[in-house]
């Protein structure tokens, strides 16, 4: 018989207790929680979060800038989820378990398009808040207008380089439809830049296929999928 590793022992190695400093419901069922930063990180990195050491942690993209004093994480409350309904109720002073930031979904100085659906905006907002949005275009796709998280800040700072697509509601300056439809309408997509995709698998797969069919090299397409 092989020796059995105790799962919680593995988790305790990397998870540390952190104290919640804020919990804001920024849209219906969507929360932004924060705690004091104890490690440096690169925008685009993720953290694992757990309510205790008996449950496997979940992974979330960091949503704050890398020179801000707090780490913030954006999440949707999943009714049948084990973690998010509890996480939605945390208040400042409460403790959760979190790992130090890790991962390598990071952008550099090269021009890029950032493409996100829903809470997939988080790593790009982190990049934006970290000051690397100068030659980037951000395309955010949602179902309802209320899901354009951080839109005031993004619209003010990025102007026409901030594109909103909404599939179920309409508004001025918002493309009526999904991201894939918006991209399909563009006759010539730039092929000499990087593309960063973040969100649900179906968006990532559809957009990646479209980009490749338009001559973008697959090496220039990086994706993070929320599952």
């Amino acid at each position: 018989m092989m020796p059995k590793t105790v799962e919680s022992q593995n988790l305790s190695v990397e998870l540390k207790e952190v104290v919640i400093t804020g919990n804001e419901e920024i849209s219906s069922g969507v929360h932004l929680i924060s705690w004091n930063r104890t490690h440096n990180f690169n925008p685009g990195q993720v953290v694992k979060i757990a309510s205790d050491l008996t449950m496997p942690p979940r992974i979330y993209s960091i949503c704050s800038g890398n020179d801000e004093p707090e780490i913030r994480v954006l999440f949707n409350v999943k009714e049948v989820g084990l973690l998010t309904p509890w996480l939605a109720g945390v208040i400042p002073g409460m403790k959760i378990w979190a790992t130090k930031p890790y991962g390598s979904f990071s952008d550099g100085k090269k021009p890029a398009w950032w493409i996100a659906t829903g809470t997939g905006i988080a790593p790009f907002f982190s990049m934006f808040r970290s000051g690397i949005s100068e030659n980037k275009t951000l395309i955010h796709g949602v179902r309802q207008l209320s899901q354009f998280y951080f839109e005031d800040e993004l619209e003010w700072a990025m102007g026409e380089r901030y594109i909103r697509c909404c599939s179920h509601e309409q508004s001025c300056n918002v493309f009526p439809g999904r991201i894939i439809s918006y991209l399909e309408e563009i006759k010539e997509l730039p092929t000499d830049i990087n593309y960063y995709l973040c969100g649900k698998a179906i968006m990532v797969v559809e957009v990646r296929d479209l980009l490749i069919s338009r001559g973008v090299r697959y090496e220039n397409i990086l994706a993070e999928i929320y599952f």
Partner: protein
Amino acid sequence: MKDSLFGKTLNELTALAVELGLPKFTGKQMAEWLYQKDVSSIDEMTNLSKKAREILSGKFEFGLVNSTKVQESVDGTKKYLFPTVQGKFIETAMIPDDDRKTVCVSSQVGCKMGCLFCMTGKQGFQGQLTAGEIVNQIRNIPEWHEVTNIVYMGMGEPFDNLEEVLKSLEILTSEWGFAMSPRRITVSTIGIVPGMVTFLNHSEAHLAVSMHTPFDAERQTLMPVQVAYPLEEVIREIKSWDFGRQRRISFEYIVFKGLNDSPRHVQELCKILNGIKCRINLIRFHPIPGTPLERTDENTLQKFKDQLNDKGILTTIRSSRGQDIYAACGLLSTKEMLGR
């Protein structure tokens, strides 16, 4: 719609028997009918009283689902298409090889992982399979009595449907179930670490990890999961396990032309796998529509294998089977889905 008996564990069957006012041992009897005998209806469970069968039939169905399509390759490989309760399709392959018959089962309808080289990912995620739907892929093919090996390498990521996959493994390996040795079962993952750890703790089946390149940046362009579960973390976790003499850990490696077939890759593989008693399975790429990736040539493939073996890593090339019947996983069900 009635609930299915097929796919329930012995504990669940016993609990429902007690709940229905039937003797406790009815659970064991049902398990034998469901998983060990050639019957497909509750009426045929003849060692249960008529009244017990009536009570069961009032609330449950036996639960086997027939395949709606089967394709047979010139090499004997068969691909079965099964409908799911959600009205979608899943694929199951039966691969004969000398005295072995290996069944490759799906664990999800579609997939969330979005790997660049995979056809299933193009369907997006359609839903989870139940343990019954997973085991049905073995029990409900004509060859089920001859099945020698099972691999969870069909559609979906098994550790993204962990609970049902573990339940299906319990049914397959328990004395009251199919009584298969876990050493004849391999579960393949792209490296969902928490699921992998739970699986290693709760099952004795073999583990296969889809690696495809030892370099993080390259893997990220092929497999988005690399951001959440970097290969380094997967390898670190595997190194913390003693797999013993009988349990096997293998790494799946689809070889792409000019991408991951160089001596540099051999060197890095040796470096990161140092200390793990494992095997590498090299896989020929079955091109899918619109892919920018290409299959490496046979000469390079052979050389790559020889170099790894020379370095002391047991490396084999998986034989390509069923190429004339949409061999790449996901092609047949995607075609069926689009055709509807």
